[in-house]
Structure formats: structure tokens, C-alpha cells
């Protein structure tokens, strides 16, 4: 498995040197969406919390990044850090209100508060420019004194690759840590964990905030790539995407969401070329996966290998 990963990473790093422009864009999107889904997997796959409002933090990251670039002309790195801070604060507020009751409440509240962020993005025109979203921001420099031609898609792709790999390493470390073990225990039986002397609600909140932070990072990478931060990035249908990617790839498996994101983006690119009703297929796919293929592609493969 590690050897396979090294080969995969080498191929990804070399991609701009042999693949046409179109695939650089596709690969950039896969990496960003993969990170978005991986952050969702931390709460869903590892902690057992089903959020239908994860796009709130992705969108917050995108808006914060775009606004910082537009009004303060900061470096990309500063904008990304600012976006992560904004998403973290938002996740702390929404999480505090949402983790207090059971999972049915949690699913409901995350969807509702996610749509609150959408309503704000729509209605606070003076800040967010309403339904048109924020455009016209420019990428000047990356920061750290690095001389990078960020407007070159291949260069931006490499930036995304490095950031996503680093962020994934941190996320991976968290899932393997003592904290990660507590999350896995909580996903199965929160009450038993409480009787071991752990405030499980606080753990769920912290996991939720970390997930919000990384979703914000993904959003911050997405805004400059997409050249716009718009309300549809916050809409609940955007929240459906990491849900589907994670289940498609395999919930609770670290690389599952990245697998799922790759399949999702490739399918979306292909299918939207002949129908605009991609969301219908998304819904049908989600229903079929939940009914018949709950462990996802990677999960099923790994189950086969480990003989489970």
C-alpha cells in the first residue's frame, strides 16, 4: 500500500508535464474536493456524525479567501490562513449548538444552520454581492517569498497538491492518534465512552471544528481556482457532495473520500456534458449506495483483501 501511494503521488506530481490542460483542471478539482470530503469523513466515517451542512465551512473558506484577496490584496497563504480561521470560528458556533442532542437533531440542525449561511450569503449584498458572488480578485503572490506564477494552472495545481497532501497527513495523524481512537469509539457507542470518564460531547465538538477548519481550507483553495465565491458553494446541494463522495469511496477509510472524489468529479464532468440534471443521478446514486453498497468501493476492496 505505501509503495502504491508513492507511485500515485509521483504520477500526480508529474501530471502537468504530460497531461493536457483540461486534465490539470480536473485533477485540481479532484484534490480540493477530496480534501473537502476527507474533512467530512472525520466526522461522518470516524465519529459517526452525519452532517448535511458541511458546505457552510467550505463556502465560508471560499468567501473569506476571496474577500481577503479582493479588499486587502494579501498573499494567497495569508488569505488561506484567514479563511481557515473564519471557518473554524463558524464551525465552533454551529457545532456548539448542534452536538448537544442526538444524531437526528444533528443532521437536522447542520442542514438548517448551513442554509442560514446560505441566506446570509444571499441577503448581505453589500458584503457578498448577493447571488452573483465575489469575483475580480487577483492572485498576486503566494507568500513566504516564493516566486510562483499562480495564474498558471499547472503551478496552481502544484500548490494545491502540496497543500492537500500536507493537510491530509495532518488529518491522517489525527485519525491514528489517541483522540482518533476516542472518535472511533464514540461513533460506535458514545454512552460507553462517557462511562469511561470522557466528555464525549466535547470530543464531537472538537472533531466538528477540525472538520470545519479543513473544509474551510478546501474552500479557500477552491475560490481562486474557480475565480468566484458564490452562494451555490454554501447551498445544501453542495453539502450533499462530500456525503456522496465519502460513501462512494468508503466511509471510515482514510483514502475513501479521495477515491470517491475522483470518481465523482470524473463522472460529473462526463455526465454534465449531456444532461443538466446531474443532481437527479447524484440522488439516485446515493440511495443505491446506501441500500446495496454501504462500504463503498475502497471499503469493499479492502474487505476483500483483509478477508472480512
Amino acid at each position: 500500500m505505501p509503495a502504491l501511494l508513492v507511485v500515485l503521488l509521483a504520477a500526480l506530481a508529474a501530471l502537468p508535464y504530460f497531461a493536457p490542460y483540461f486534465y490539470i483542471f480536473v485533477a485540481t478539482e479532484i484534490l480540493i474536493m477530496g480534501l473537502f470530503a476527507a474533512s467530512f469523513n472525520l466526522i461522518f466515517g470516524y465519529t459517526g456524525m452525519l452532517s448535511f451542512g458541511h458546505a457552510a465551512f467550505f463556502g465560508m473558506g471560499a468567501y473569506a479567501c476571496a474577500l481577503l484577496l479582493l479588499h486587502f490584496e494579501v498573499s494567497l497563504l495569508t488569505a488561506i490562513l484567514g479563511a481557515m480561521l473564519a471557518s473554524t470560528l463558524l464551525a465552533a458556533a454551529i457545532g456548539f449548538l448542534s452536538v448537544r442532542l442526538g444524531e437526528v437533531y444533528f443532521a437536522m440542525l447542520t442542514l438548517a444552520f448551513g442554509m442560514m449561511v446560505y441566506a446570509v450569503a444571499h441577503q448581505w449584498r453589500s458584503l457578498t454581492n448577493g447571488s452573483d458572488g465575489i469575483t475580480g480578485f487577483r492572485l498576486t503572490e503566494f507568500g513566504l517569498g516564493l516566486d510562483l506564477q499562480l495564474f498558471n494552472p499547472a503551478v496552481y495545481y502544484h500548490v494545491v497538491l502540496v497543500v492537500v497532501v500536507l493537510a491530509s497527513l495532518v488529518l491522517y495523524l489525527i485519525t491514528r492518534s489517541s483522540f482518533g481512537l476516542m472518535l472511533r469509539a464514540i461513533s460506535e457507542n458514545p454512552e460507553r465512552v462517557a462511562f469511561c470518564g470522557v466528555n464525549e460531547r466535547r470530543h464531537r465538538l472538537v472533531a466538528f471544528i477540525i472538520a470545519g477548519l479543513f473544509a474551510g481550507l478546501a474552500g479557500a483553495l477552491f475560490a481562486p481556482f474557480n475565480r468566484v465565491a458564490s452562494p451555490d458553494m454554501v447551498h445544501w446541494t453542495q453539502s450533499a457532495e462530500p456525503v456522496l463522495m465519502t460513501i462512494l469511496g468508503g466511509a471510515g477509510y482514510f483514502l475513501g473520500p479521495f477515491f470517491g472524489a475522483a470518481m465523482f468529479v470524473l463522472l460529473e464532468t462526463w455526465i454534465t456534458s449531456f444532461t443538466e440534471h446531474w443532481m437527479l443521478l447524484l440522488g439516485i446514486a446515493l440511495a443505491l449506495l446506501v441500500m446495496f453498497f454501504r462500504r463503498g468501493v475502497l471499503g469493499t476492496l479492502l474487505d476483500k483483501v483483509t478477508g472480512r
Partner: protein
Amino acid sequence: MSEPILSVKDLRKSFGGVRAVDGVSLDVQPRETVALIGPNGAGKTTFYNMISGRMKPTAGSVRFQDQDITGLPPHTISRLGISRSFQINNVFTELSARQNVEVALTALHRKHFSMFRPASRNRAIQEEADAVLERLGLRHLSDTRAGVLSYGDKRLLEIAIVLATRPSLVLLDEPTAGMTPEETRHVTQLIKSLAASGDYTFLITEHDMHVVFDLADRILVMHRGRRLAEGTPEEIKADPEVRQAYLGEEEVA
């Protein structure tokens, strides 16, 4: 007599109009093993739930080591030194046996917010977990996923989790339920040796009267939410009211 480690005063719990526990008091001395018995629906589990923080009492108080713990959340009560097992199997089936114990140990050593160090690198906790499993005769199953353990081994693992939190008061809710006679003997011996070690105080509910009379220093009999009788096993065996209300239904040795 020394100060009681657990002192329950006039505990009550109503659900709607039904009084599940109706004014029960109980003092437990340190290093004592007290059995709580009574027919189904007598209110034993509700009583447990209030002591361990799973339910808030309608009235009454619970003191533990001279501290009022009435209505505190479960994680606080657990940290103060009360640990409980559950009637149904309540282990983490997706984790290995060792990881099950690790969850409790991680909490005990306050490592549960350690995020950037792999759990498997924490040698001290790993070794301690194996030691706890060893004590229960589960060492050879350390790496087995708890979900595939036999029923009896799952119940033992449950006790391992309880002990790993290093409690001074252990609440066991029907520890031998569903076990084979062999496994029951094993668990009874185990509880006896733990009690003899002088580190633990036990409060046990149990349906198997052999186990109860074998283990208990003192017995509290509950019936319809109230205290029916309290005394040594001999006194309880001889109590005519108890015989009529409860023991008459079962074979008594």
C-alpha cells in the same frame, strides 16, 4: 464502622406517574460487596442509572466519598471513581480487544485530546491494556476485533473496560447473564479475587442466586421500586417476606 464510600438517601425516580424507584436508601462500606436483587421491574437498573449518572433522580441524593454526585454527568462520575458495566454487551465491536481497554486507559491518563501522536506508539498504555487483559485471561485475544469474540469473552472484556478506569466503586449489572456455567464460575472467582485484593468496592445485581450468595457480604432486596429487606445473605435467606415476594419464585440453595 468507617465512613460509607457510597451513601444513597431516599432516591426516587418517576416516569410519568410510575414510580420506578420509590425512596430507596443504601450505605455501602469501603471494600464491601453488596448485591442488589429483586424480580424484573423492581427498579434495580433505574437505581444503577441514577448512581452512575445515566438518569437524573426525581428526588433524593447520592454521595460518593463524601462528595454529592447527585445528577452529575456520567463522565464526571466515572472520573471520580465509579465505573459500571451494562446488562447487554456494550463493547466497541469495531475495535480490537486491546483498543477497547485503551479507550478507558486513554481517558484515565488524560490523553484523550492527544492528536498528533499515533495511539499505537503509546507504549505505556499498550502495555497496561495488555496487563488488564491478562488479568481477565483475554491476553491471547488482544488483537482480535471485539465484534467476533464469543459472548462470554465480550462480557469479560466489558469487565476489563470497567477495571481499566481504576474505579474504587464498581457497579456490575448482571455480570454473568447469559454465560455458560463454566464462564459463570470463572467470573465469580474473578470478582472474589478482586474483592479480596481490597482495592474495590462492588455493587452487583444478579439473577443467579448461587452467585449472589457466594459473593455478597450484604444484600439489598428491592421490590416494586422499594426496599423490601436488607441484611447478610443468611438473614435474607431466612426472611419470610423475601421468600414470599421473590425467592419463592426461584430455586434457593
